[in-house]
């Protein structure tokens, strides 16, 4: 999965329509970030990277980039 695809899927999960989502977007600034969104993100990562990230790990996450680091930057297609 490419970074752009990941961002666009995240946008859909978090139901963001009118603003842009970038690697520097701070997760907690999104009103839509709740336990349902968290489940959606964990499922998205499991489906595309075959890895299960612990829900607890998201407590230390600030930006979208931090999530991508949990997955591993090298796992994204160029």
């Amino acid at each position: 999965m490419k970074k752009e695809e990941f961002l666009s899927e995240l946008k859909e999960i978090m139901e963001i329509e009118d603003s842009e989502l970038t690697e520097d977007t701070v997760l907690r600034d999104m009103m839509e970030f709740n336990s349902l969104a968290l489940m959606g993100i964990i499922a998205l990562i499991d489906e595309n990277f075959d890895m299960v990230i612990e829900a607890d790990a998201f407590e230390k996450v600030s930006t979208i980039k931090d999530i991508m680091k949990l997955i591993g930057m090298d796992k994204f297609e160029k």
Partner: protein
Amino acid sequence: MALLSYDGIAITGISACVPRKRIDNRSLSEPFSGPLLEKTIKTTGIVERRIADASTCASDLCCQAASRLMDSMGIDRDTIDVVIFVTQSPDFKVPATAPLIQHRLGLKKETAAFDVNLGCSGYVYGLSMAYAYATQAHICRVLLLVGDTPSKYVSSLDKTTGILFGDGGTATIVEKKKDAGKSFFSLNSDGSGANALQIKAGGFRHPSTPETLANVTHEDGSIRNEEHLTMDGGAIFNFTIKQVPADIKKLLEFSNTDISDIDYLVYHQANKFITDHLTKKLKFPLEKVPYSLGKFGNTTCLTIPVTLVSEIGTEIETGTKNLVLSGFGIGLSWATAILTIKNCHVLGMIEV
């Protein structure tokens, strides 16, 4: 490793009873509201639930289901040798409820009767025990009763749990049957996750006090006390997507079953988003996964028999169906069964 197999034992009858009173999740008021409520309904798939009145216990719903099933099957009550009652809502703290049920159903005194305290995995665990007893020469029939009234231990004002659960009671008859074929079970536990779904106080570790019963408003607007169920949804989701597909695959391998020979995969009805994800992980067709949670919600230990009755009752009554049953959650505890049901006596949903 708790892998079990049986030959020549079958489910021959099954029934489910729910209270008449419906709760429509869309009609809920504060602290549930607006777009988030609608999104939660859409994600979980839980639209309606049934709630027992103050005087109705899980055992009452199970007794209704059992009486009508035994009458409809024309079962002589003296042929019931074991009663297993799986519940998280016993009538009393002590004694166990199963002996009371033995008496209420007019079963003989030579009946083994005991309770099992399990939730989401409870039907599959209970079934594995029923099958084990049924193999015995002097056991004619086992009556497996699985019922719960989560409405009595969940705060209706808790934003995490308040819209998920419903009440009900089920009865399943297990006995020897020559053409039953083989059945397989896998049973598992991980107590390190016990606090992911828990009622903290009111037992003997943290006895009931006025403080544990005092309602507290939490950061997210939820109102509950320490004798209400709490749920860490993220932790449960992590656990489920890691353990459940792996356990199903393990049992398919153990039983030498090809997943393409499975007619229905019946999950514990926790949350449609979670189980759809499991199905995708297993590369199993979504149309072979029945759901009853839209109508009855998460009824804890009895979601699987409720789904068997309400969604595929006709199919298991008239045909031969290979099923995977998968229960997972509180404990943490999870269990899988692979079995064949054919010409099973199924009563339509009973409402009281």
